[in-house]
């Protein structure tokens, strides 16, 4: 097995935004089309990495292992402890969804891997791990119900467009002092473009346009079969706006970040397989 030089990010902080995703994609780009090799991602010099991005790292590791590659993470200091508390270290050591992982500080929301149609475990994750949490005790019941609903809608939406039997990776983090919550869901399916391209008769031909199309309230839902509806991402975007937050969606090599202002879109260093949806909520 050949060993590649360790990849050290070019920034010392990786957050849930376009720059952060681009940074992670630079590492992923180095691994593309490689089989049976060993890679090392050295995060030991990082001052900060959003813990919810553990779901992205876990998905990258899963993809590499499918190509018989080995991925070693080097973590140190605060980042190491955060990633230990949210279960990422256990996941890296081959123990996904480790029940012994406990966060005594209750600022992380554990990394969890779900198979399609694990609706009940996902609901339990939201109720127990998210909202049975110290950081959310100030929320009213209606606010909690609304958040559970938005996360469930995203989860359901991901399965609709992903068209995959591969796992979905979820992780979150609370910043209690900032009243901020970040959550990232990663799937390894088709991404946005395929279905949107079909639905629009080929008029939408880029991932970024497909994401924007969905954010405007459009849907690929089969109305004759499943009844009316769709537009879930638009209503979640509205909710994020009301909370000074944003929704960031990655599909293929494109991302769109929709907050209060115009949608910011950009390119990653390479395409991730599937899609990623991150919510950043403030004023909680």
């Amino acid at each position, binding site marked *: 097995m050949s060993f590649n030089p360790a990849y050290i990010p070019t920034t010392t902080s990786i957050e849930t935004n376009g720059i952060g995703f681009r940074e992670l994609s630079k590492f992923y780009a180095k691994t593309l089309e490689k089989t049976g090799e060993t890679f090392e991602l050295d995060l030991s010099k990082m001052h900060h990495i959003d813990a919810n991005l553990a779901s992205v790292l876990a998905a990258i590791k899963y993809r590499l292992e499918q190509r018989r590659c080995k991925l070693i993470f080097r973590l140190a200091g605060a980042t190491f402890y955060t990633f230990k508390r949210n279960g990422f270290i256990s996941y890296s050591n081959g123990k996904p969804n480790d029940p012994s992982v406990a966060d005594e500080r209750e600022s992380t929301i554990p990394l969890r891997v779900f198979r399609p*149609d694990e609706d009940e475990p996902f609901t339990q994750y939201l109720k127990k791990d998210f909202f049975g949490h110290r950081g959310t005790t100030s929320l009213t019941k209606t606010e909690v119900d609304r958040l559970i609903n938005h996360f469930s809608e995203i989860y359901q939406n991901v399965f609709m467009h992903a068209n995959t039997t591969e796992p979905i990776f979820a992780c979150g983090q609370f910043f209690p002092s900032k009243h901020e919550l970040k959550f990232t869901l990663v799937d390894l399916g088709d991404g946005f473009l395929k279905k949107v391209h079909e639905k629009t008769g080929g008029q939408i031909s880029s991932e970024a346009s497909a994401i924007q199309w969905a954010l405007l309230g459009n849907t690929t839902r089969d109305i004759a079969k499943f009844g009316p509806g769709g537009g879930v991402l*638009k209503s979640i975007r509205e909710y994020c706006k009301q909370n000074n937050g944003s929704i960031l969606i990655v599909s293929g090599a494109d991302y769109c970040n929709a907050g209060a202002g115009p949608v910011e879109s950009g390119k990653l260093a390479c395409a991730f397989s599937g899609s990623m949806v991150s919510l950043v909520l403030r004023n909680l």
Partner: protein
Amino acid sequence: MNMVRLLVKDIISSTVAISNTAGLKAFNAVQKYVSSGQEVILSFAGIENLTSAFCNAVIGKLYMQFGEKHVDSLVKVTDVDNEVWQEKIRTAKILGVDEKFRNADQENLSQLFA
């Protein structure tokens, strides 16, 4: 004819009502009665999680297929004490009844390329 009481959690064999496919199961269970003119109570008792995807597949599709008058006269939704879920059910009904509302979000493609 007696009113039939259908429990969502029994129909979908789960307390979590979030997927389209589960919604479709509930739709199929209810529509049997609605199409034959029998009154139905659709109870959400014991449900722990509910999404618009589910509501639209059962409530929205019922209204789309059978019309407002027919569904209102035959189907009674009960045991929904969660404010957010009540909103979802109301919206599903409007989506099923009102084609204009249903298409309101379908934005013009040209917006994307402006």
